[in-house]
C-alpha cells in the first residue's frame, strides 16, 4: 500500500486527534462525559496526561527512526546505546538515596526521579561514546552500547536487591508509567519534540545517504561525522527525556518507524515526522487501554504497548517471508 506522504501525515494526525478526544473521555470510571460534567478533571488530569503520553511516544518514535537510520539496522531502538540501563540505574540510585540528604534535596526539586532518569540516560550514553572512542565506528559504538547496558543493568539489580522497598517503584519504572503525567511534562516534551524534529530534519539527507552505505554517503561529500554526532545527541535527548517521564516503555521506538515504512514511506524527510506522530498515537492508545480495561485499576502502560507492538510485528512477519 502506497500513500502520498502528505495525505498520510494528515491521516495520522487525525488519528492522534481522535485518540486525544478519547483520552479526555476515559478515566477512573471508564468512558464518561467528564468533558461536560467535570471539566476540571479533563483540563487538570486527562488532557495533560494524554498530551504528555503522546509526546513521550512521539519522542520515542523519533528516536527510533533516528537510531534505525543512524545504525542502518531495522532492529535498532532508542535504548540501544545504554540509555535505558542508565536511566534505570539513575532511578534506582535516587530511590535508594531517598532517605539521605541528597535524596531529600532531589525530591524537593519536584523533578526527583525524572531528573535522575535523565541524568542516568545521558551518563550512560556518554560512557558508551567514550568506550567506543568517538562516534565514527558504528559496530564499535553498538558493542560499547551493549556492554554499558549489561553492566549498568546488573548494577541496578544489585541496588534493588539491597533495598527491597525500591522493588515496586522500580517495577513501575521498568514497565513504563503514564499515570502521573501533568502539564509540566507536556511543557517539556512537546517543545523538545519540535526542536529535535527540526534538527533531525536538517540531517535527513545524511540519513538517506547512510542507507546506501557509509562509503557511498562519504563519497557524496556529506559531513558525516558532524551530522552523526548531532544525531546521536538528538537520540540521547529524545530517549532520555521520554524515559525520564514515562519509564521504559517497550516497543514504541521500534514499531513506530516500521509502521511508517510499511505504509510506503522511505525518505527520512517524511519518515522522521511520521514516526514521531505514529509513536505518539501508539503510546496514547496504550495509555488509554491501560486506564480503561480494568478501571479504576491501572495496568502498567508497557503491557499494552508490548502487546500492540508485538502483535503488529507478528502480523508483518509472514508477509516478509512470502516476498
Amino acid at each position: 500500500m502506497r500513500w502520498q506522504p502528505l495525505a498520510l501525515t494528515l491521516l495520522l494526525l487525525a488519528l492522534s486527534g481522535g485518540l486525544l478526544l478519547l483520552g479526555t473521555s476515559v478515566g477512573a470510571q471508564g468512558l464518561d462525559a467528564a468533558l461536560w460534567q467535570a471539566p476540571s478533571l479533563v483540563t487538570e488530569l486527562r488532557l495533560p496526561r494524554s498530551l504528555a503520553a503522546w509526546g513521550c511516544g512521539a519522542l520515542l518514535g523519533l528516536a527510533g527512526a533516528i537510531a534505525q537510520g543512524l545504525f542502518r539496522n531495522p532492529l535498532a531502538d532508542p535504548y540501544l546505546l545504554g540509555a535505558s540501563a542508565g536511566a534505570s540505574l539513575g532511578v534506582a540510585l535516587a530511590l535508594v538515596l531517598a532517605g539521605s540528604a541528597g535524596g531529600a534535596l532531589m525530591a524537593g526539586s519536584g523533578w526527583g526521579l525524572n531528573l535522575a532518569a535523565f541524568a542516568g540516560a545521558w551518563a550512560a550514553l556518554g560512557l558508551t561514546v567514550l568506550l567506543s572512542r568517538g562516534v565514527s565506528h558504528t559496530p564499535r559504538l553498538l558493542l560499547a552500547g551493549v556492554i554499558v547496558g549489561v553492566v549498568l543493568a546488573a548494577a541496578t539489580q544489585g541496588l534493588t536487591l539491597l533495598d527491597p522497598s525500591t522493588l515496586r517503584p522500580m517495577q513501575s519504572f521498568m514497565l513504563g508509567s503514564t499515570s502521573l503525567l501533568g502539564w509540566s511534562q507536556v511543557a517539556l516534551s512537546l517543545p523538545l519534540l519540535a526542536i529535535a524534529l527540526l534538527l533531525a530534519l536538517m540531517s535527513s539527507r545524511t540519513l538517506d545517504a547512510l542507507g546506501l552505505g557509509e562509503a557511498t554517503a562519504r563519497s557524496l561529500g556529506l559531513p558525516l561525522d558532524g551530522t552523526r554526532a548531532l544525531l546521536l545527541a538528538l537520540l540521547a535527548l529524545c530517549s532520555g527525556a521520554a524515559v525520564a517521564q514515562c519509564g521504559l516503555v517497550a516497543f514504541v521506538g521500534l514499531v513506530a518507524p516500521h509502521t511508517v515504512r510499511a505504509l510506503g514511506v522511505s525518505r527520512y524527510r517524511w519518515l522522521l515526522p511520521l514516526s514521531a506522530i505514529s509513536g505518539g498515537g501508539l503510546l496514547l492508545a496504550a495509555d488509554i487501554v491501560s486506564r480503561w480495561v480494568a478501571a479504576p485499576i491501572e495496568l502498567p502502560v508497557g503491557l499494552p504497548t508490548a502487546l500492540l507492538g508485538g502483535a503488529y510485528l507478528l502480523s508483518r512477519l509472514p508477509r516478509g517471508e512470502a516476498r
Partner: protein
Amino acid sequence: MRTLLSHLLAWASAALLSSAALANTGPLTHTDDLGRQVTLRAPPQRIVAIGPSLVESLCAVGGCDRLVGVDRFSNHPAMVNALPKLGGLGEVSLEQVLRLKPDLVLLTPASRLHDRIAQLGLPVLALDAQSLPEVRRLLRHMAVLVGAPERAEAVWAQMQREIDAAAAELPSSWHGRSVYFEVDPTPYAAGEASFIGAVLARLQLKNIVPAALGTFPQLNPEFVIRAQPALVIVGQREAPNLAQRPGWAGVPAVRHGRVCALPRADGDVVGRPGPRVGDAARALVRCVRALPPP
C-alpha cells in the same frame, strides 16, 4: 452393618481427636499456602525463617529460641539481630542454610527458593498474610509448629486489645472521614481487604478503596481525586510531592494539610502483616493526631 460402620466412624474420629491432642509430640502434616503438604515427625527445633512477617509471627508465639537463621531485613524482636543473616528475600545463601542444619525452613510463597530447598531434603513451608484474618491464620500455623496451638489466640487477643486501645486514642471528629493510604507512589493503595485496610476500618476511617479492588491495587490517580479523601496517609519520602502531582492540590486532605507522612522508622511496623499490627495502629493514630482535626 450400620452399627459396625458407626463404630468405625467413632473410632476413626476418636483417633483423629487424640492425634490432634498429641500434636505436641507426634508427626503432623502441615499444608502451606502453596497447597503443598509437609509432614514433620516432631515439632521443629531448628527453624530458618526468611521474611520479617514470618520471623515476628514465630517469635510472638514463643518460637524465637528455635530460630537459627533469618533474612537480612528481619530486625524484630531485638534478639533476632544476633542470628545469622542468610540473605535478602530473593537471594539466600543455600550453603549457609544447609550449614545451619535446620529441621524446617519457612519462606513466603513469592520466594523462588522453595523447590531448591525441598530438593536438598529440607522440610520447607511457604506461608504469607495479606489480610488481618490471614495474620491470625499465620499465627495459628506458627503456634502449631511450636507445639502450643493455644498461644495463637492469646497473641491475637492481645493484638485486638492494642488495636482497640489505639482506636480509642483517635479523636471522634475523625470518625467516618474518608482515607487514602498510599503504599507506593505508583500509585498503589491499601484497600479495605488488606491488613492495613482492616486497621483503618477499626480506627473508624472510611477507606476510599473498596475490597472489590483487591488488597493492594494500582489505581488511576483520577480515582483518588474523585474520591476526595479527607485524609491521606503516605510515606515520608513521597509526602512533599503530593501537592505537585497533577490535580492533587485540590484534594481536601492536601488542601487542609491533613497528609500524614509516616516516618521511615514506622515503615517496618506498618508494612509487615504480623503480630505488630497493634503497633501499626498506634503509629497511624500518632501520625493522624498530629494533624489539624477535621
